């Protein structure tokens, strides 16, 4: 069974008197535990698609189900809760909270959940900071970190709640190629150890060798069905 199910999703943006059709009927099933890549040129609709899967944007038409639940029917509070519990985000610009240090940034989603005890939180945060190799930097502010380190923090933050799915929109676009490789390797490793589903977009063919499944998007449409790379 797919953990993500996208059915005939369309997304139009009104732009002055015309309409931009960013997605024109996308059908996509992503099975649990995938390491799934969406590739496409700039403006093809990758971000739009990921935002809709990530429940921070709504499709103009079609439905999206996450873990069997149709998200397009939920209200803002429910959808926010769903994001908190089932989804993790990694952004191209890292988007850490600048006033919080590494530890606090990672801890942040757990505190929002309000369901964990202090000890649990500590153990979980410690484990993830170790997993992304930032033990030495736990008390540094984002501004004191390199781009690669920041993205590691973002990965730890995305994983800390033990989400079903992690969505990453061009996670390596702002990193040099060496760092990109280590980040993708880290994601791939975590995909294997934690069994978390990763969906990430890229327009860099170099990145693709890490993907287990790839789908290509062009002008708002998937051009050929996913294929198993490995």
């Amino acid at each position, binding site marked *: 069974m797919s953990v993500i199910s996208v059915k005939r999703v369309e997304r139009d943006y009104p732009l002055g008197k015309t309409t931009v059709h960013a997605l024109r009927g996308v059908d996509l099933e992503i099975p649990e535990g995938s390491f799934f890549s969406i590739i496409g040129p700039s403006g093809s609709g990758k971000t739009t698609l990921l935002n809709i899967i990530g429940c921070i944007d709504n499709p103009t038409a079609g439905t999206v189900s996450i873990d069997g639940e149709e998200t397009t029917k939920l209200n803002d509070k429910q959808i926010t809760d769903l994001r*908190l519990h089932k989804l993790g985000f990694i952004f191209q610009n890292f988007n850490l*909270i600048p006033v*919080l240090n590494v530890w606090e940034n990672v801890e942040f989603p757990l505190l*929002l959940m309000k369901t964990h005890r202090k000890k649990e939180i500590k153990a979980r945060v410690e484990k993830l900071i170790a997993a992304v190799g930032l033990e030495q930097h736990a008390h540094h502010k984002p501004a004191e970190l390199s781009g690669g380190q920041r993205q590691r923090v973002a990965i730890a933050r995305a994983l800390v709640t033990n989400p079903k799915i992690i969505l990453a929109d061009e996670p390596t676009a702002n990193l040099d190629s060496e760092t990109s490789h280590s980040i993708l390797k880290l994601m791939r490793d975590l995909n294997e150890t934690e069994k978390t589903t990763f969906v990430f977009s890229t327009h860099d063919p170099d990145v693709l060798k890490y993907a287990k499944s790839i789908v290509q998007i062009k002008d708002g449409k998937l051009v050929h069905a996913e294929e198993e790379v490995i």
Partner: protein
Amino acid sequence: MGLILRLSIRNLLRQKKRNMFLGIGIAFGMMILVIANSFSTGMVDVLIQDVVSNAFGHLVVSGTPGNSFYAVIRDKERIEGVIREVIPPEDIVLITENLGVMGTAIGNGESDNVFVVGVTTDTEEEKEAFFTDFFTLVEGDFADFTSYDYEYPVIISQEMGRSLNVGLHDVIRLRVPMVTGQIQAVRLTVIAIANANNSFMNIVLFLDGGRVKELLGYRPWESAALQVTLRDPKRTAAHYADLIHQQLHPELLYVAGEIGGQTAQILAFQNNLEAKETVQDTIVITTGDLETALASNGVMMSENLAQRLKLQPGDQFTFTYETKFREMYSEQFTINAIFQSDSHLGDEVVFVNEERIHTVYNRYLPLDTKSASITADSVLYSILATEWKLLERNANAQEMMKQMRDERRIRTTQTKFQVMTMYEGASQILQLEEALNLITILAVLVLFFIILIGVMNTLRMTVRERTREIGTVRAIGMQKRDVRRMFMYETLVLTTLSCMAGVLIGIIVMRVLGTIEFDTNSVLSIILKNKRLFFKLNPAAMLSNFILIMCMAGVTAYFPARRAARLSAVEALRHYE
């Protein structure tokens, strides 16, 4: 600490400069408020406590004979009894006599108008408290104040000493009007030179209360206006004044005595047209002239009594009665008319115009005032004179002035009783406080306006700058409500800290201002205490100001905060600056 609050505080610290500016603005506003409030509280304190209540008491009961200017309560025990009956002892701090009179003082070649005040202290503690609270001793010894080594020991201010050119142990000659209308001249000896804590008091000569009473011609059982210092005047003064007013309802003017061995009573009719007409319509004159009998010194006698005494109109007789203070007193009257004895007044009555008897009555209060046989259903009852006239209570100083003017127009010898509180008497001063508060409020409104714009702008800027962060936390899973709360907390924490800083700075500023000495004798000096501005912190006002500022900051912050919370996560994440 909660996550949201922690974020708010961190974010506050992030924009140090901007928030500092806003904080200083709010702190400044709060400071002004605290100072203004403390000043008006202090001023009212000085005026009410030190000037008004010392000069007039919280509640005053006074009796003024006719059109005179001085107060004489002829029966201190009775009136004080009424006061003590109405006010429970735990609410009374002190009952004193208002012994104050204007006079002329002559020192060494210099003279000045002065205000003589008699200080009555019943216990050593009261005396001690009075001297230490009220004065700063420059020279001399307060212990001499009640000493009999000097005929009239007096405390004067340094300023008074200068203006009269007298020093310690010098003699001041004083001329004051007595209650009897004569002028009294005495020699005072300066036993202490001391400055009262309010320069308003610098024109006062302080003398021992007992000796002032003597000096002014009060007899031992008489008293000047009685002033009551209350525990909680704001709450109780008006209420107790009303109750005392009810209790002071005057009795019929009535004297029981004898004429040539025959028991007789004096009743009086009111000296006004209506009363006289009623008398004319009710009473049948057998001999004599009604016209003269109704005049202001008119005397009528019941036919029955006149026959027994063999008296005719034009004859004189002596009425003798026992006074309340166990003396016998005799007064001579001349009969103007004789009236037919009937059921209205009885057989033994001397019926006089009230103006013929008030002075005598008050000076020699009769022992028996209660056994008049005339009853309320008598036609004459309503026009009979009463022992005194009880003036209506007034709501404010204007009403009081008007009442005084109206009363002055009617020439009479009847004593007028009045019950007032400082809130009516000092209503002008209290209005000054209100005016001051109003000015404060206006200043504050302007300040608030500035603060409002500050909060609004700062928050708008902050929200715009942090749009992408808002998008991030929303995407991660922070609820709208918490985003709104985060921005609200930021403003409220800043406001709280700023208000606290404002209070602190205000206290420091007041301390500094309070050390400056103002050497002025102008009207302004009455708001000074020991020549300094006097501030008194008003925690309740401070708290309400704080709440007010918090509410305003909260309301202003709410809208930008809500806007931030309502941002769409995608849009916020796309935000580019």
